[in-house]
């Protein structure tokens, strides 16, 4: 018995040494993303082709649930093990301010468009920021159950807030972001003026007053998978959700749902490189590949998020498994019906408005 134990230990030690010896030759990069269908689309469009072409690089996919807590903890401990993180743009800006992410020279470090347009011109306007490499445009929009209402169907944000015409429960995200904008739009503020109005105390009061009108009929969600579930179960008749999740509920699970593109809030998701990582050059090499025109267009084969490059838009084809044309499902196609979220404004006001929102919920 004792001998068995000893041999096992020796054997294990040997295996560990070998593993280290191998990893010394090949580079392993920790690539962090949101998990689920989204990570799956990245694996197919970016990771697998890259590892095929570069056999010395191994990309380890790690899941997380957003936020900068881990990145900050690693940075403070001085042991950065995440080489690349998929973040929403507001977190990228916050992390950039705090020095958690490396600054990016987009024209220097990223691939040009096939026709030679530099990245700073090719990425959609307003999407670039200091530490952030845009990847996809997603949107948060309302969906409704198509079997809930007889006759006229809801089409606008005002309809969503109209309990008399369209009664029933709604599910909204438990956060002030987006909800305040929608309340103002439903109250008659044009989408382009929303942040101007929100920047005044009266504007914020007005938004909360409008939210008050539907408060009793709202179930608040915090996890991204919940709204599609509530809609599918018939718990609610309206729900906000990320358009990719809504797409898979409609097209893959065949739920009786439809998206209201009016008032959709466009947001950007992309890569940020934690500063202090050990494999800076290798990571940049991968990012350059993963955000080139073709790769961004490829990702749309697997999930209905729009590519962040203008040059990728015409290359978007059909869904890899469903075979349906993806172009009509890109939120960017309906960009004129919605608006781009103002991350700088939210970075300034998020803390205060969150407290106010929570207090409002408890009233």
């Amino acid at each position, binding site marked *: 018995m004792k001998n068995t134990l000893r041999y096992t230990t020796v054997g294990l030690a040997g295996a560990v040494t070998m593993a280290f010896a191998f990893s010394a030759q090949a580079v392993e990069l920790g690539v962090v993303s949101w998990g689920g269908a989204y990570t799956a689309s990245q694996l197919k469009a970016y990771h697998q082709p890259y590892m095929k072409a570069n056999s010395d690089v191994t990309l380890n996919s790690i899941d997380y*649930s*957003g*936020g*900068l*807590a881990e990145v*900050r903890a690693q940075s403070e401990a001085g042991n950065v093990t995440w080489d690349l993180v998929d973040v929403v743009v507001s977190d990228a800006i*916050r992390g*950039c*301010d*705090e*020095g958690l992410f490396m600054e990016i020279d987009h024209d220097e470090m990223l691939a040009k468009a096939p026709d030679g347009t530099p990245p700073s011109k090719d990425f959609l306007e307003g999407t670039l920021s200091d530490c952030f490499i845009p990847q996809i445009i997603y949107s948060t929009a309302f969906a409704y159950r198509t079997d809930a209402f007889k006759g006229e169907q809801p089409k606008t944000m005002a309809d969503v807030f109209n309990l008399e015409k369209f009664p029933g429960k709604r599910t909204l995200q*438990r956060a002030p972001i987006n909800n305040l904008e929608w309340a103002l739009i439903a109250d008659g503020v044009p989408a382009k003026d929303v942040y101007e109005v929100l920047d005044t105390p009266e504007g914020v009061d007005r938004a909360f007053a409008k939210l008050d009108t539907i408060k009793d009929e709202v*179930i*608040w969600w*915090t*996890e991204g998978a919940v709204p599609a579930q509530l809609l599918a*179960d*018939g*718990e609610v008749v309206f729900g906000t959700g990320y358009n990719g999740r809504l797409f898979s509920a409609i097209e893959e699970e065949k739920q009786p749902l439809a998206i209201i593109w009016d008032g959709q809030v466009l947001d950007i998701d992309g890569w940020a490189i934690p500063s202090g990582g050990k494999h800076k050059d290798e990571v940049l090499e991968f990012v350059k590949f993963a955000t080139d025109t073709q790769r961004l267009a490829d990702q749309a084969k697997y999930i209905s998020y729009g590519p962040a490059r203008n040059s990728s838009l015409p290359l978007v084809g059909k869904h890899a498994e469903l075979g349906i044309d993806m172009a009509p499902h890109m939120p960017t196609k309906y960009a004129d019906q919605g608006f781009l979220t103002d991350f*700088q404004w939210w*970075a*300034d*006001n*998020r*803390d*205060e*408005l*969150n*407290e*106010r929102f*929570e*207090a*409002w*919920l*408890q009233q």
Partner: protein
Amino acid sequence: MAEATLDQGDLMRTADGTPLKISIARAMRRNKLKALALIAPLFVFILFSFLIPIIDMSLRSVDNSVIPDVLPNTVAALADWDGEGLPPEEAFAALAADMKAGRESRDIGKVATRLNYELSGMRGTVMGTARRIASVDEGPYQEALIKANKDWSDPATWKLLKRLSSPYTMGYYLNAVDMRFDVDGNIEAQPDFRQIYVDLFLRTFWMSILITGLTILLGYPIAHLMATLPLRYSNLLMILVLLPFWTSLLVRTTAWIVMLQSEGVLNDLLVWVGVFSDDARPQLVYNKIGTIVAMTHILLPFMVLPLYSVMKTIPPSYMRAARSLGANQFTAFVRIYMPQTLSGIGAGSILVFILAIGYYITPALVGGTSGTLISNQIAYHMQQSLNWGLAAALGVILLATVIALYFLYNRIVGVDKMKLG
């Protein structure tokens, strides 16, 4: 040997001649060292995985070092300022210099974030000013800073900076109890529409107490049955208690959503039986009811198991003796049986209560707005807002309350009477 001992008079010696006292002491020391070596791994583990992180985290609740560290010149220049009107030109020059250095070292964002906790909008003010002042090489800096952002012409902004000059702050604790400093540094209540934490603390406590009470109510009969039924039945009951205990927390929580939601199993049943009409289904989840039901179920084993282990040790002859002395079943139960189970109730209650008070994922999933607890706000500030100072302050308050309650419990019931098995 015997002669040697006699020769030395009163000193007892071992075989090799060392005095017995020393020899025993040596053996004892060896044993003590062995014992220490045995617990050393555990001690080191607890130190590094538990004590140091907790202490480190709680220190953040008063830490304000970022302002003196990144803006040292400004802090020095403001030290003599009396707070009347605008500070002198030196302060403006110092701030401009600090901002340039901070932008270079990429630390200015930390200042911006810190100031934004105190006053919304300061983040934009600081970042914008730092960007614009970078190209200004000579004074007067007062004009240049005010041109970069008009907030610097407001004495309130400077008072805020002066107030935050110290490396320590009570600001996070004030925030955690819905208070704040006003412009002049006096403590005042937050405006109504920003008061959330005190209510959440109170709710967390009363819901935890309620859940503890419910687990006693539900767990006591089960534990009693398990302790008194014949082995083959009690084993079955034990499995029924343990199976959910071994099931993933998330699975159990989600199962409760399926059970309780308005198109769910329970509601369908109630409508079918005719208790409610189809269009007046009660809301049983995404509110307090959801949290209480799901958490009571999830925490029930922590009450049943200590109760069971205590009840198992109570000889049935005591009850029979009470009956034979004339007590009826009820009196015998209340006066003889129950007092003997108090230690189990105590152990179970403290386990359930302390677990409930820090519960996080279940309330987040089934709590809606009225059923979430303070831990959900702590998680929000850890993960989303990155306001670790506030998260730490909320956590320290929670920890201190739990410790205080534990001592109170020790005073009233006595921890030595607690029995876990």
